[in-house]
């Protein structure tokens, strides 16, 4: 009766596509630029993989090729994470309502 976790992940993936479809269509057009920058930031959650890669193996040889690729991945993803969220924040801060 054991179900392969892949099936579950597939379900999660498909349902997320539905959610993504609806959630993006409900974004107001005036915020489409922040939408682009924030999706950029969140897609850098790939940093998770980079962290695992860079911490793999014993502590002595942390500069094996695979770890180095991990470290590079971390730098790239970190640029994106900080850059993406901060620039989004900067933009959103500018959207103001009329003072009454």
């Amino acid at each position, binding site marked *: 009766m054991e179900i392969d*976790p892949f099936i579950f992940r597939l379900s*999660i*993936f498909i349902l*997320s596509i539905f*959610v*993504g479809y609806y*959630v*993006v*269509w409900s*974004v*107001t*057009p005036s915020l489409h*630029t*922040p939408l*682009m920058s*924030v*999706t*950029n*930031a*969140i*897609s*850098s*959650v*790939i*940093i*998770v*993989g980079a*962290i*695992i*890669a*860079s911490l*793999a*193996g014993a*502590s002595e040889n*942390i500069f*094996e090729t695979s770890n180095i*690729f991990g*470290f590079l*991945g971390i*730098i*790239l*993803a*970190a*640029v*994106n994470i*900080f850059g*993406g*969220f*901060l*620039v989004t*924040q900067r*933009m*959103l*801060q*500018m*959207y*103001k*309502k*009329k*003072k009454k």
Partner: protein
Amino acid sequence: MSANLSALFYLISGILFILALRGLSSPETSRQGNYFGIAGMVIAIVVTFLSVGNFGTGFIYVLIFLIIGGSMGAFIAFRIPMTAMPELVAGFHSLVGLAAVFVAISAFLKPEAFGLGIIGNIKLASLIEMSLGAAIGAVTFSGSIIAFLKLRGIMSGAPITFKGQHFINLILGIIIIFLIYYLCKSQSSNIFWSLVVISFILGVLLIIPIGGADMPVVISMLNSYSGWAAAGIGFTLENTALIITGALVGSSGAILSYIMCKGMNRSFFNVILGGWGATDQASNLQSKEKKPVKNGNADDAAFLMKNASSVIIVPGYGMAVAQAQHALREMVDALKKNGVKVSYAIHPVAGRMPGHMNVLLAEANVPYDEVFELEEINNDFANCDVAYVIGANDVTNPVAKSDPQSPIYGMPVLDVEKSKSVLFVKRSLSPGYAGIDNDLFYRDNTLMLFADAKKMTEEIVKSL
């Protein structure tokens, strides 16, 4: 940290990302949304540290690299001018793509760290997922780099086309599929590296034939790709947060490209196959260049608007180029003081990226409830005295409504011609992005104000 607990936290982080996008449904909730996104990211990173549980030297290095990357990102985020957003997004995409490639490479080199088997005997499913992730990531990377260079003006925006281009791309695509197939059979690292290299090349070749102004559609498409790449890696790493995020980003990019293509009334393939707009504009220009236009100056414009009861501002790409948004805001303030009702009309594809005009106006402190979308405001032009068109062109072109032969036929446009008078601020009679002449310039109720958008607006402010 137990696998169950961390799976739960990755789920929470995925949900926070959903809420981050959901927040963008209105400006009020958007800032909160961004905090949700940040929280989701923090959770994902912390949980990863805890579940790897290796707090030795490596950990220190990770922190250091995180801080290095982070400060670079923060620096860019604070410095970048709002008008450079298209390039910025393209640049950031390239980084995500490359990061995905790096993660895939590490996973291939040290599968045991990810629980995917051992070198030379990686689980089949993981191998497929990671090679797809690497290939898509590589295409995203090199494609985004080209997009960045074109937008930044480092590389010419002109489409680079040559014979058999699409055929070569097709061949490369087929080679990639074959390489993945053989990789699964042989687990050979040479094949893996070839896969990555060929994908880089494909990315470049795919984007060079596309004109600079089409880059926003391309960026969105690459955004979508980077999402699917992330989801692929998410399957490899068995990580829910990555899978959810990948699907969100994938849909987001796809929908934005769709919205843009729809707003330009072009098919997606038409954009991707490239080389557009360079064909029949010449003939168009010749036949009409001779017609007379009414030429005005800042005083005329100030006089017209001061005596109007309502004015609608139509900003376009030229406003962004001239950085005229602050001057514009001053002009509107002055008009309002004179009792004129002013609103802004934004076409869905005004400027060069979705929401471009809105961000610039927001930067100039224009309250977002004075800014209206096409459907909301299009009927108001008929009751409006002056339409002030600043650096916009295609989005007002009535040929989209009248001439089925025109390449933009069927694209929704702002009905500026219905207002009593139309002011066009631009530097010349030259056409806009679509390369077609605009009939409105020659109409009786149009006054052309030939100047840089910022200078002209500042002069008008002075005369008011």
